[in-house]
């Protein structure tokens, strides 16, 4: 066992003002050692601070690179929802067997509001992660798992079984992966999805235009909808189409590819997990993201478009002439989407469940 105390581990992250303590286990993982280091981290800077935790947040990745991309968002969400954050990085392809624990805390308002334990396992050491995790969870608090891998496999099934909620990002996976999500949801899996949180502004604007007094008359006559994804059909478009189809059952809904993306990021099928990156502005329109959403209630047509940081709704064919409505997209600060999903710490979002089922039914006909 090698222990380095008092040395911040940059780990390629640069200084963040956190002192990380670390310990490496080559054979047996010693949880009491990890707990002792956690206590030491809390005692740094004076007397032991009070610790506040509202959830156990568990993040699972299969490469350090994937975790590095998600780190800022996890930290931000962890500060918003005080928690014990346990990050499991399983690098089974590495030759040597070891488990390294990095431990740090963040204080807020005089109390420790984030306890962070990062366990990186290599080679056969990966087998220790699951049992180590169980010993590190705080009792009584909900367990929310952020799943950074493909939405499939035995480990995910076990995570779903043990957690109060599992958060995935189907926006980084091929749209076909929604079928597996749908299957798990049918079995009652409490799955949350960042792709779902990403389309909230579209859903809100669509709902809002039907609340405008002179447009309420069209509610009863909704007939069809079309979701346009930039460059290629993505999971977000499928979810939006699925949502509409589940809410207006008689409507004909399609999801199509059209137009260009602003960036090449979020290419469906090429992501490697929960890539919760942050931007100081509304996120750019990535390939597979939603560029437009149209629905009709003859003679009216509702056209929702994304123009940089603004969503605009235009209504044509209404007696009152053309109506324009718009909302600003939220600034994509790190952890915003995860923070939204963490507001629900257990159970299923019934609206999401229904949307995924319908999205899967839409995809075979529409996927690019």
């Amino acid at each position, binding site marked *: 066992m090698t222990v380095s105390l008092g040395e911040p581990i940059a780990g390629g992250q640069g200084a963040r003002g956190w002192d990380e303590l670390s310990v490496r286990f080559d054979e047996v993982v010693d949880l009491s050692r990890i707990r002792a280091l956690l206590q030491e981290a809390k005692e740094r800077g004076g007397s032991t601070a009070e610790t*506040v935790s509202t959830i156990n947040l568990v993040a699972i990745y299969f490469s350090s690179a994937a975790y590095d991309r998600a780190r800022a968002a996890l930290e931000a969400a962890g500060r918003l929802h*005080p928690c014990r954050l346990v990050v499991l990085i399983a690098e089974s392809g590495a030759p040597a067997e070891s488990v390294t624990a990095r431990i740090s805390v963040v204080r*807020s308002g005089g*109390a420790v509001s984030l306890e962070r334990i990062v366990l990186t396992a290599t080679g056969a050491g990966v087998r220790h992660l699951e049992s180590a995790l169980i010993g590190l969870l705080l009792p009584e608090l909900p367990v929310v798992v952020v799943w950074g891998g493909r939405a499939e496999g035995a480990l995910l099934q076990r995570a779903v079984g043990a957690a109060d909620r599992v958060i995935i990002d189907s926006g980084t996976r091929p749209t076909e992966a929604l079928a597996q999500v749908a299957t798990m949801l049918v079995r009652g899996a409490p799955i949350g999805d960042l792709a779902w949180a990403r389309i909230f502004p579209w859903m809100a604007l669509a*709902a*809002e235009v039907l609340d405008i007094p002179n447009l309420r008359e069209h*509610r009863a006559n909704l007939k069809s909808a079309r979701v346009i994804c930039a460059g290629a059909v993505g999971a977000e478009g499928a979810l939006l189409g699925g949502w509409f189809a589940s809410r207006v059952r008689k409507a004909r809904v399609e999801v199509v590819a059209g137009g260009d993306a602003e960036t090449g990021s979020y290419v469906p099928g090429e992501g490697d997990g929960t890539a919760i990156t942050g931007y100081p502005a509304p996120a750019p329109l990535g390939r597979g993201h939603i560029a437009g959403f149209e629905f009709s209630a003859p003679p009216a047509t509702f056209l929702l478009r994304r123009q940089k940081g603004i969503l605009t709704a235009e209504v044509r064919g209404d007696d009152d002439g053309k109506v324009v*409505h718009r909302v*600003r997209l939220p600034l994509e600060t790190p952890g915003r989407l995860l923070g939204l999903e963490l507001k629900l710490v257990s159970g299923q979002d019934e609206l999401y469940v229904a949307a995924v089922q319908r999205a899967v039914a839409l995809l075979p006909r529409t996927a690019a």
Partner: protein
Amino acid sequence: MPYAPEHDEVANPLRHGLRVEIPPEPCAVVVFGASGDLAHRKLLPALYNLAVGAHLPGAFGVVGVSKSEYSDTQYQTDMREAVGKFSRTKPIDDEVWRDFAAGLRYVSGSFEDDATFERLQGTLAELDRVRATRGNRLFYFATPPSTYPTLLRKLQKHRFIEPPLEQRFTRVVIEKPFGRDLPSARALNRLVLEVLDERQVFRIDHYLGKETVQNVMVFRFGNTVFEPIWNRNYVDHVQITAGEELGVESRGRYYEEAGLLRDMIQNHVLQLVCLTAMEAPVAFDADAVRDEKIKVLRALAPIEGPEAVAQRVVLGQYTAGQIGGNDVPGYQQEKDVAKGSRTPTFAAIKLNIDSWRWGGVPFYVRSGKRLPKRLTEIAVQFRKLPHALFGEGAAAPNTLILRVQPEEGITLRFSAKVPGERYRPRTVSMDFRYGTAFAAASPEAYERLLLDAMRGDQTLFTRKDEVEAAWKLVDGILRTTEAPDGSAPFSYEAGTWGPREVDELLARDGRVWRRP
């Protein structure tokens, strides 16, 4: 005005179950008193922060109206400075500000002058055109109460007021004080309701916009463990304290007119009493919540006549003293305060709620300026143990403290065994602090209330009957204390918890004030 669907209207199928908050309908907010303190310090920063959080509709505009001469550009510059200084989020986000300022207009002129309102019509029509605000208006009276009748009449005369349930909405936010006694509050309500429908009126009490005040309801009605003991069987008494370190500062003229009873008790403190004492509403909507609050106000035993006031009310006025190691002047040395003034700057009142739940449980409330610290809290003191198993007085009664400000949170005080000694109990605290349990910054009270007013949700605004019922209690006290032969308030040194007489109020009942 909550939207009331037509009988045969189809419900919005897309709204069902959405977890995201939907921005209000497009609208223009008109701030009367736009060059004043409230607009600079609170309203414009609150609106800007709503824009930062993407809570405002995309089609949105603000029109400031007041006497001061500004061009649109000057007003935008002035407001950017105010927002930079008083906003809770800093620094200003240039992109958000550009979009926000593009919808910011200014109309200068007297409220008495018809031409002011004609110009306002023109400006709002222009906003409808270029910002698509669609004729929806939220008027905010950030002006002295003496201007309310004029503003209401002018809005009516110039046809700014749309009937409720029309395609466009008109709402009016009215700042406190709403009247200066029961007759004037009734007269103002009559006038307001001649011009507006109650569903269009938003009487604001910014205390209700505070997250921790709203949390009183969540704490009580979102937990099963407290409600069964929240009654006369378990509660000995309740103490509500709303104290400030500050004196009247530059508000001497206003304070001489108002005094503590009008400034704090009639609104903020009685709202805290209502939230603490109310029954669970049948639903969490505006009328259901306000129906329950008004039952509490109606159940308050009146305090009328010199004898009742002497028994249950202590008024005070601060003299020079020290706070935080600094010398501070007495009330009568403050600017715009008359020598020999009898205006109270402190009040402590014993309230009795004649109801099944609270019969025999006094609610002691106190509020004052120049107290040792700025603090608002509700302390529920539970009954003594039925049997002193560990010795007389060894185990103190439990206390539950809901801290509204500062250090917002909840503390439960209970007995625990001192380690090592034989069954010696000591009172310890179990603490919940908002700031650490929820690291997200709470919105300012005005943000929440402005958003609710734009949405037409009146839950956190006071209703006509609520205002009048609160005045009824305070009016009873004022008739005695402001009578020509009424006693002058007792003096208390700045930096203390009020006059000595305030201790007697509880001592008579065998109780003592908390020293928070």
